[in-house]
């Protein structure tokens, strides 16, 4: 299927950009899943294309050469000059430019003063946000009119429809620049924090959340005033959802809620302010690892170094304030910026409130004053209205048919589905539920899960491919009926994984988790998948996140262990698994992962002992594992016997090639391993979690690449 998507996309890219979407629509008329996959990939491909064009131009083209008539730093996109007049503004010069637009120095001829004009990039005003919403936000900020908030004089439009904002030109430096010189004095830090909090309080009172409080957005004027600037983190929720790995912007200042892409409120800004205050005092950030992923890990899990470790003189009350701002649970933070201001003011016994503090800060800034730059105001408004909370799909009571509901409930019986025959009974119930109410979304989601369950068990009725096809149909139907159902997206995601359409699987599971963060099972599945596709660290972060939702649920706990294993942290993984030992009935997957941990440590007898325990419930996968370990342990005769059984079996029923490949890998037979791996892609028995081991055994044989490409997993670096 992914092959099909590749082909369609490939063809689409040969068309004119305008025609591409239409072509995709037409090629995927009867397949909404395919359509979504195609559209998402098209967007990504186009953005990348555009980027590479520009990169190519930058590196190789001599269009910018100094021999040209045009001044060297003139970009092709219309730069405005002093000829340009918009209403009563005359452009004086270009100040600077950032991702969120271009800033010019201009003269306001009506009021005879200098101003800054900020033009939005055309794509931003056109696409990223509905114009009305952008305007509404800008107006909301303009209406604030608060001394600690960057003012907006006017919001206007050019004749050709480009939006711009007129703002005052401020002198001074940003807090970011200032922090390069080291930490601030305690008084200064507190004064700055108070002023930021005042700006926030004014915004929050009007229902505006800043969302991007960070030193680069805090401007220190020579007169001691601190102003909160805007800038551009106005990302629609959709962007987070699609663009999996990244929440844009600097993660170091993001609250845990924001970093997860959850709806946020004013308390998220308070967290960010806490990070800024910490940095002003300590001179380094509380979450200070170098890359996004480890920083997120810190934000979610570790407590920052106490401030007293940096500065002994810090008042205890101030330490407590910072600690309270950096509470992961928003309920434990301050209730409001006002409350914070009160506490900050009383935290400094000697400072007598903020008047003295701001005087101090003025003195200090004046000392720097001579070298102060005209501040380049690059930001743009990212004040966004407090996120409306998404209506949560309320339960699965989406049927009014009592009988249908009853059948649905019966299909949910957990003990029942442990056996293949029980799963069939459950299937029967859910099919009856659907027969009684054909618009019953939750029942379709359930049906999808049960078909998947049966596909993964012993299925005498049809091939694995056919069964997974039925599962896919049901999941697609569930999503079509209720796009806001986390269960439906989770089911679709899991099925896509087994169909080797992993990019889509990631997107669907992520969607499921966003729609219903409390679904620890979907969270665990997402973690597992991230590990598979080559993001072990993100997988670990995700697994822990899922576990936070439901600390006692075995699945996320097992996924934490699995992700630790993928990060080569076997001992920690085994320690996690030990906690799951006492479960009744034992969790099959825990034993499976434990065996892999021992194998990673090359402790073959222990690995074999673990597999022996899961053989009764493990089907052919456990046999495959056993064959692999026996082979690696040098017990070739026993391994060969398992191999013979599996090969015979795989001829009888569909969908076991992967386990044969495992045993061949254990026996060191590279050619056979690759051949059976290829078959496993065809018969859909491929399971990605074994690839790293096989790759380790055989190194980077180029024949693995097409296999990995077909199933959407990364070639691992071992």
């Amino acid at each position, binding site marked *: 299927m992914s092959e099909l998507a*590749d082909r369609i*996309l*490939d063809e689409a*890219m040969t068309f004119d950009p305008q025609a591409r979407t239409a072509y995709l629509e037409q090629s995927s008329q009867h397949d909404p899943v395919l359509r979504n996959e195609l559209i998402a*990939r098209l967007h*990504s*491909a186009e*953005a*990348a*294309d555009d*980027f*590479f064009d*520009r*990169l*190519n131009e*930058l*590196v*190789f*083209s*001599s269009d*910018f*050469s*100094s*021999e040209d008539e045009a001044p*060297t*730093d*003139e*970009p*092709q*996109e219309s*730069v405005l000059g002093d000829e340009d007049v918009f209403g009563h503004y005359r452009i004086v010069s*270009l100040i*600077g*430019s*950032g*991702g969120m637009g*271009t800033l010019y120095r201009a003269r306001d001829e009506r009021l005879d003063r200098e101003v800054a004009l900020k033009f939005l990039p055309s794509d931003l005003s056109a696409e990223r946000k509905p114009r009305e919403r952008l305007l509404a936000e800008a107006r909301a900020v303009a209406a604030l009119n608060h001394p600690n908030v960057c003012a907006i004089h006017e919001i206007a439009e050019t004749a050709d429809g480009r939006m711009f904002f007129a703002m005052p030109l401020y002198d001074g430096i940003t807090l970011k620049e200032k922090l390069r010189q080291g930490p601030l004095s305690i008084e200064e830090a507190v004064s700055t924090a108070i002023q930021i909090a005042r700006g926030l309080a004014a915004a929050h009172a009007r229902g505006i959340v800043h969302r991007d409080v960070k030193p680069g957005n805090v401007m220190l004027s020579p007169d001691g005033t601190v102003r909160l600037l805007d800038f551009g983190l106005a990302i629609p929720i959709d962007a987070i959802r699609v663009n999996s*790995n*990244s929440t*844009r*912007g*600097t*993660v170091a200042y993001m609250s845990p809620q924001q970093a997860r892409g959850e709806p946020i409120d004013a308390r998220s800004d308070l967290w960010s302010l806490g990070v800024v205050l910490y940095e002003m005092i300590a001179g380094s950030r509380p979450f200070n690892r*170098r*890359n*996004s992923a480890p920083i997120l890990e810190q934000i979610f899990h570790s407590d920052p170094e106490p401030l007293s470790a940096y500065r002994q003189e810090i008042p205890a009350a101030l330490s407590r304030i910072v600690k309270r701002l950096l509470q992961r649970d928003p309920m434990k933070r301050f209730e409001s910026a006002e409350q914070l201001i009160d506490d900050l003011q009383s935290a400094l016994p000697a400072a007598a409130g903020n008047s003295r503090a701001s005087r101090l800060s003025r003195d200090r800034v004046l000392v720097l004053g001579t070298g102060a730059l005209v501040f380049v105001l690059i930001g743009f408004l990212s004040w966004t209205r407090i996120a409306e909370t998404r209506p949560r799909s309320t339960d699965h009571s989406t049927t009014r048919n009592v009988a249908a509901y009853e059948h649905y409930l019966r299909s949910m019986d957990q003990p029942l589905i442990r056996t293949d025959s029980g799963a069939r009974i459950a299937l029967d119930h859910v099919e009856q539920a659907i027969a009684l109410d054909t618009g019953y979304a939750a029942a379709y989601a359930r049906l999808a899960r049960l078909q998947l369950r049966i596909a993964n068990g012993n299925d005498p009725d049809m091939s694995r491919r056919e069964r997974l096809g039925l599962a896919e149909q049901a999941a697609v139907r569930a999503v079509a009926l209720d796009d806001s159902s986390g269960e439906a997206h989770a089911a679709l995601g899991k099925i896509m994984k087994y169909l080797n359409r992993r990019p889509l699987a990631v997107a669907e599971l992520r969607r499921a988790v966003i729609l219903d963060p409390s679904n620890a099972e979907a969270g665990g599945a997402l973690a597992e998948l991230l590990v598979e596709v*080559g993001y072990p660290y993100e997988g670990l972060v995700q697994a822990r996140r899922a576990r936070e939702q439901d600390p006692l649920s075995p699945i996320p706990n097992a996924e934490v262990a699995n992700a630790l294993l993928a990060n080569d942290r076997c001992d920690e993984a085994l320690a996690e698994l030990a906690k799951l030992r006492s479960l009744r009935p034992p969790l099959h997957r825990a034993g499976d992962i434990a065996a892999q941990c021992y194998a990673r440590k090359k402790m073959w007898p222990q690995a074999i002992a673990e597999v022996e325990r899961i053989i009764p419930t493990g089907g052919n996968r456990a046999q495959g594992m056993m064959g692999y370990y026996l082979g690696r342990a040098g017990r070739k005769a026993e391994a060969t016997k398992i191999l013979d059984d599996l090969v015979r079996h795989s001829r009888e029923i569909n969908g076991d090639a992967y386990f044969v490949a495992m045993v061949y890998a254990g026996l060191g037979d590279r050619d056979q391993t690759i051949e059976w791996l290829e078959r496993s892609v065809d018969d859909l028995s491929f399971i990605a979690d074994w690839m790293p081991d096989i790759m380790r055994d055989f190194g*980077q044989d*180029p024949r693995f*690449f097409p296999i*990995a*490409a077909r199933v959407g997993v*990364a*070639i691992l*670096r071992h």
Partner: protein
Amino acid sequence: MGDAEQHVVNRLLHEMRAGNSEAFTQLLPLVYDELHQIAGRQRRKWDGEETLDTTALVHEAYIRLVDHAGQKWESYPHFLAVAATAMRQILVDYAKRKHAGKRGGGLKRVPLFEIESTLESSASIDEARSSALIALDDSLRRLEEVDSRQSRIVECRFFGGMTIEDTATALGIAPITVRRGWTMAKSWLYQDLKMALEDAT
């Protein structure tokens, strides 16, 4: 470049055509040296605001190394593939030297996603170019670990300025594979650079 070297180059190119990937590795230093020497003469351009005309460089190197008499153009795509890798190294080396020469020597990241804006702002073009090259090189290295074939395709297409067909011939794969690989690699690098950029800010 003596006759012996020319002989070696010819032999290695022949082996590459026959599918021996080891030949590539052996050829690389020879091609690199030659290209580097030729480029050295054009350094002045690079040091100004201009770019090197890489196509012309590679062409000249090919003629000097392989084709005195204008005969052996069937090896050209294979030579280009090696030259692409060499060119990547040369350009990145230059870029790194530029950065090292800067005050403090630290690597200042120019926001790649604002290339136009970078040009508008105070950073000079060649600063932006250096930053872009270094970031791309880093990213390409990460791609290499994930899918080395895709990274080879990028070298050929981007650094070598090669056509789909030449790339296909040189790498011994189908043109459609090149085209898809190129599309996928661009998406991958774009995402990766975005992440790297976020990490840097």
